[in-house]
């Protein structure tokens, strides 16, 4: 069958089971958009290419499938970079197709030419410039394979205009075989046995679960493992949802804004089992004093994550779900009777930390942002998909909404991109049309990609945005308060749009709460309203996120409320 490059691309997207594409057209991709007219793909026309990538990211996390973006060359391509870098740091599987000038013009500084392959080399798992239409089908297949396998990540495919127009015989390529790429899924069982032996000896073990557990959907295996061995579990920001946030063994999040008991448990534990984590600096604080008494075990599919930031006694390269399921099998072979008794002292200690120093805030005359999230949790029964922006809003969402499943907490963890939440919510809503999707936002962040509200309205995607409107770039203000003697340099907004009117201007619904007594009403109304809604919660301006470990300090040195 002879086909044009653009048609081959469509065929291959069908092959890969793609149903939605987030994109924005332009000169270099006219032919692809033309071919799109003859397909059934749901194409979501975003309002900014950054939005397309974050939406594909949200789609991927909510669905567990590969997100797809399509943008034009030059500015279309450069606009995707922030989204790609975010997906790279969070290991999210997306494939980005960028238009490119015709091959004979590459290198000529042609109109709307950028070297997007060069630009994104350090922030993609891999990228391709297609130079021959004969390679196109194979490259698309490889791109999807790379994006979703091993440690997932974004893969970019740059498509010159002449390649897209060239014709060749199309045949669906066979299974991908790359001699240079062969991720290890199945761990070494002897290493796993060492973990079991350590667990049998440990008095104060802790599991530290990360994004890898969510990505490999290892939540059920993890829950079984932790409960059977009676080991308390903490998580990184990316790890929330990997273990039920409502379970007695759950310690809450770890690190800079982690709970008192999680940070204390890590500091005192004698065995730390890290699963799908990279021990990033926001988690470890000062590494010398991180888990100082513990033997550290680390399970990760990416060998570079192991022993990168902390020394590890038992390294295990493998998929989190497979590793945990094998650990569960091994666990069944040992005698666990009396384990509850054995762990009692340790778990009692943790309960004591929880009781003496819980997550807390003080109610007052103004709306407390934490209260908004607590109420949202209550009203949604913990069932909503939550996306976040970045800053205090993100940390409060992590602290006060309790997640029980992977794909329910969608946040830009590694890169921390303000403007992530709204487009990510749109992508999540496309993936999960029946679910409640709420973007917990800040008044600063929401303005970074507010244009996507038009996308939500156009496609009838009923995303809800809860703005914790503190009139500040709150998280930066908090650092200025604590470490710069309250010198609020450029963190107070002297002007903010009226978000209710803004919502209305976009064709969405706008609601506002200014008093604590209105919070529940507004949330209820917002959640019940059809279509996209912005809820503007005018909250306490100078509320801070606690506990807080100052950057570079040991995690036991927490500033408390």
């Amino acid at each position, binding site marked *: 069958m002879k086909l044009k490059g653009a048609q081959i691309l469509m065929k291959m997207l069908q092959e890969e089971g793609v149903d939605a594409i987030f994109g924005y057209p332009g000169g270099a991709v006219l032919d692809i958009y033309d071919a799109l007219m003859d397909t059934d793909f749901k194409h979501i026309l975003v309002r900014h290419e950054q939005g397309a990538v974050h939406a594909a990211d949200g789609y991927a996390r909510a669905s567990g499938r590969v997100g797809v973006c399509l943008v034009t060359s030059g500015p279309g391509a450069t606009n995707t970079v922030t989204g790609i870098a975010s997906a790279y740091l969070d290991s999210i599987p997306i494939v980005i197709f960028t238009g490119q000038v015709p091959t004979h013009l590459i290198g000529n500084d042609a109109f709307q030419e950028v070297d997007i392959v060069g630009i994104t080399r350090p922030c993609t798992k891999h990228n391709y410039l297609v130079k021959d239409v004969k390679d196109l089908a194979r490259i698309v297949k490889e791109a999807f394979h*790379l994006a979703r396998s091993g440690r997932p990540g974004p893969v970019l495919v740059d498509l010159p205009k002449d390649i897209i127009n060239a014709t060749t015989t199309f045949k669906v390529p066979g299974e991908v075989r790359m001699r240079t790429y062969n991720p290890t899924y199945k761990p070494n069982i002897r290493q796993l046995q060492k973990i079991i032996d350590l667990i049998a000896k440990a008095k104060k073990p802790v599991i530290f679960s990360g994004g890898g557990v969510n990505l490999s959907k290892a939540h059920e295996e993890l829950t079984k493992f932790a409960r059977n061995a009676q080991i308390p579990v903490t998580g990184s920001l990316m790890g929330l949802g990997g273990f039920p946030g409502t379970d007695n063994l759950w310690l809450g999040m770890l690190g800079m804004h982690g709970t008192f008991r999680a940070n204390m448990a890590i500091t005192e534990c004698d065995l730390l089992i890290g699963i799908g984590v990279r021990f990033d600096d926001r988690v470890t604080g000062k590494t010398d004093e991180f888990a100082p008494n513990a033997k550290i075990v680390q399970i990760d599919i990416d*060998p570079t994550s192991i022993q*990168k930031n902390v020394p590890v006694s038992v390294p295990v390269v493998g998929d989190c779900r497979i590793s945990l399921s094998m650990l569960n099998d091994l666990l069944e072979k040992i005698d666990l009777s009396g384990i509850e008794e054995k762990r009692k002292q340790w778990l009692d200690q943790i309960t004591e930390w929880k009781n003496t120093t819980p997550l807390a805030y003080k109610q007052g005359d103004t709306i407390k942002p934490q209260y908004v999230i607590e109420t949202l949790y209550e009203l949604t029964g913990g069932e909503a998909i939550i996306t976040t922006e970045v800053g205090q809003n993100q940390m409060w969402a992590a602290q006060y909404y309790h997640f029980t499943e992977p794909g329910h907490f969608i946040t830009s963890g590694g890169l921390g991109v303000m403007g992530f939440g709204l487009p990510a919510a749109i992508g999540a809503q496309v993936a999960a049309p029946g679910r409640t999707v709420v973007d917990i936002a800040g008044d600063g962040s929401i303005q970074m990609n507010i244009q996507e509200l038009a996308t939500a309205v156009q496609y009838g995607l009923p995303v809800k945005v809860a703005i914790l409107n503190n009139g500040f770039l709150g998280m930066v203000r908090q650092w200025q308060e604590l470490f710069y003697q309250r010198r609020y340099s450029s963190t107070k907004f002297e002007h903010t749009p009226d978000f209710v009117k803004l919502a209305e201007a976009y064709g969405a619904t706008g609601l506002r709460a200014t008093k604590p007594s209105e919070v529940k009403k507004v949330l209820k109304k917002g959640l019940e309203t059809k279509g996209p809604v912005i809820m503007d919660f005018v909250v306490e301006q100078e509320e801070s996120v606690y506990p807080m470990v100052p950057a570079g300090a040991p995690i036991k040195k927490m500033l408390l409320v």
Partner: protein
Amino acid sequence: MEEQRHLLSILVDNEPGVLSRITGLFSGRGYNIDSLSVAETVEPHVSRITMVTHGSPGILEQINKQLNKLINVIKVTDLTGTHYVLREMALIKVNAKTEHRAEILRITDIFRGQIVDVGTDHFTVKVTGDPEKISAVLNLLKPMGIREIARTGCIALPRENGNSNKNA
């Protein structure tokens, strides 16, 4: 921790952009490249990169893993502490006043080098060997006045039989 120098032999896809992925990895993560040489192997689709790098044991472990993680990297062999042959070549353009010409020829001869270009007031000397040998030649030629140097960087291959001395 103590810094170590390592010699890596890296087989990669012979494709445009691959070298830039490697050097980009090193610059982006703050690793060191002391020398680097690249050329095609017997398999035209494969190139060999020979690289000398240094860092703490932790960094060297990361370098090895990060290189392996690159999709276009086929194989990374750390030759350090194994049996291998190693060579570097240098071209040295040195001032050659009449009274120095005999001395330069003698030095070149001792080190089994060659004069590959001769002018009225200069020689270009070619020497091959390990980096220490090349430094030794450079030291001896220095008093004559070295005008320009070009060095290839190290290239190396593992030895097939284990009866030779182990390299450091």
